[in-house]
């Protein structure tokens, strides 16, 4: 089985279009999105028809919960006043520009999706299985902790997004945690592309892929992180037209994060410029 797994979209409909085309070319069996459809980018309604037309099942992110229920903020939980300021600007814009129908749809999304793929138990969530807005960064998440989550949620493959940088780790008995990254904005590495993941299991897995032996099975799993190049200058123009903060536009154009940096552990923070 071959699945395309998209992380936060942040209204980046141009990147979503490019990712869908890429995934189709790879012949994936199904596509999923792990939530946070809005935020940051322009014209929040534009991702919805793409998701529906391509049968992309979605998990509800913290942003979707907030916009759907018209809450006061995005529940990202930033504590830095500066981060909060920018987070609020994009939240208010997204709230104002998301249609009532789309808000209703966001409200209806599940907090998690469970799939059975080639005998593997796959759990798709937004932050962590236990908490929608929990950040799981590579450098501040022990393997013992991920193993505990995999035990408690009885899953062989735990897939999430939320933090914005892709990574994966092998767990006990060949189980996996995969953070698929996000399509919404680049990864704070000075390149303008965004990322998603292709999960291949069973006979679709890459040659030599390690098997998951939990749950009495022996199913090979391989994960391929895919860079997506899209028309980021067009996105930046649209953001400008919508008068979104220049700090966000710079991120799209340069590949460096400029705000909401206080949540990063030092390892991930060092990778960036600011």
């Amino acid at each position: 089985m071959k699945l395309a797994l998209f992380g936060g979209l942040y209204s980046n409909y141009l990147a979503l279009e490019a990712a869908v085309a890429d995934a189709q070319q790879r012949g994936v069996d199904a596509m999923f999105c792990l939530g946070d459809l809005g935020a940051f980018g322009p014209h929040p309604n534009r991702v919805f028809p793409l998701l529906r037309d391509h049968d992309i099942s979605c998990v509800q992110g913290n942003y979707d919960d907030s916009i759907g229920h018209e809450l006061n903020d995005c529940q990202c939980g930033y504590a830095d006043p500066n981060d909060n300021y920018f987070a609020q600007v994009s939240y208010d814009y997204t709230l104002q520009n998301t249609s009532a129908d789309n808000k209703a749809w966001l409200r209806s999304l599940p907090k998690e999706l469970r799939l059975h793929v080639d005998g593997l138990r796959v759990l798709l969530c937004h932050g962590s299985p236990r908490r929608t807005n929990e950040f799981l960064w590579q450098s501040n998440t022990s393997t013992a902790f991920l193993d505990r989550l995999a035990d408690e949620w009885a899953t062989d493959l735990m897939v999430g997004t939320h933090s914005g940088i892709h990574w994966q780790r092998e767990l006990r008995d060949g189980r996996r945690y995969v953070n698929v990254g996000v399509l919404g904005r680049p990864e704070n590495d000075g390149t303008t592309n965004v990322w998603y993941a292709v999960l291949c299991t069973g006979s679709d897995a890459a040659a030599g892929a390690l098997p998951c032996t939990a749950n009495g099975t022996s199913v090979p799993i391989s994960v391929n992180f895919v860079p997506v190049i899209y028309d980021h200058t067009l996105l930046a123009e649209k953001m400008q037209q919508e008068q979104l903060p220049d700090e966000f536009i710079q991120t799209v154009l340069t590949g460096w994060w400029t705000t909401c940096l206080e949540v990063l552990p030092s390892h991930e923070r060092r990778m960036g410029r600011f």
Partner: protein
Amino acid sequence: MSTPDVMETPHIDLMSLDEIWFQVAGTVCNLTCQHCFISCSPHNHSFEFLTFEQVETTLVESVEYGVREYYFTGGEPFLNRNLVRMLKRTLDFGPATVLTNGTVLRPEWLSELRTAEEKSGFSLEFRVSVDGPTSEINDPIRGDGTFDRAIKGVALLCEHDFLPIITMTQTWDDSRNAEILQQFRGVLQKHGCHRPRLKILPRLKIGAEENRTEGYAETERITHQMMEGFDRSQLLCHHSRVVTNRGVYVCPILLEASNGAMGDLLGESLHPFPLNHGACYTCYQFGAICTNSTLRSQKSD
């Protein structure tokens, strides 16, 4: 500190053991800050240093509980001669954070730690206590000359490519927070710290601080009513325990409390705890004051 009837007090369950704290320097510190909530000093041996073996045993045990990250505190952790070794070992298990006053750091330790951090892939965070952007604000509380010494420590950390988090215990009016933060960013820039991470913490009115100011009023306690709908994950005791040379305690704040000790071993320390202390009230009001995480409350759990 008087404690009201335990039955009237809400109890908190340990949801899961996400963090382990090591009281690695006990209550021994090279400084004697006037607001120290566990009254640390060079002469306070109420809690003693942890040994490398105690840390090692706990690390191994922690795997079974699925612990996510480890914190090292005191006193001043770097007074413990085994700290560097302990931190390096910890980075085999997961991310580590040290709470230090920044005044005794040595370049050779930091080089060694930076190399170990890079190799492990887990973050090693430093939280340095400096109680304001000037010696005029800091020194009356932390001692003469401590501002300059701590800032030197911060600069040394930055030279070694660490990104220290500066924590300030707030001794000024809320209205000055923005100005203080701005001023501190400037000071840090000047000392080669180009990505300042600053966190303002509330005072905990126990230990030395109780003598310096007023302590908690009888009414400053968490009630059952207050806990309704409250996001318990904001309280450290909901997801961590602290290992000391005298056994496992509920949190690094209540070391001196009569009921703070939970058991000799981790496995004996997992029962619920009554939130019957004034300090609990501060945790409730401010939330997440002890962890690096800047997460505020959110409604879904």
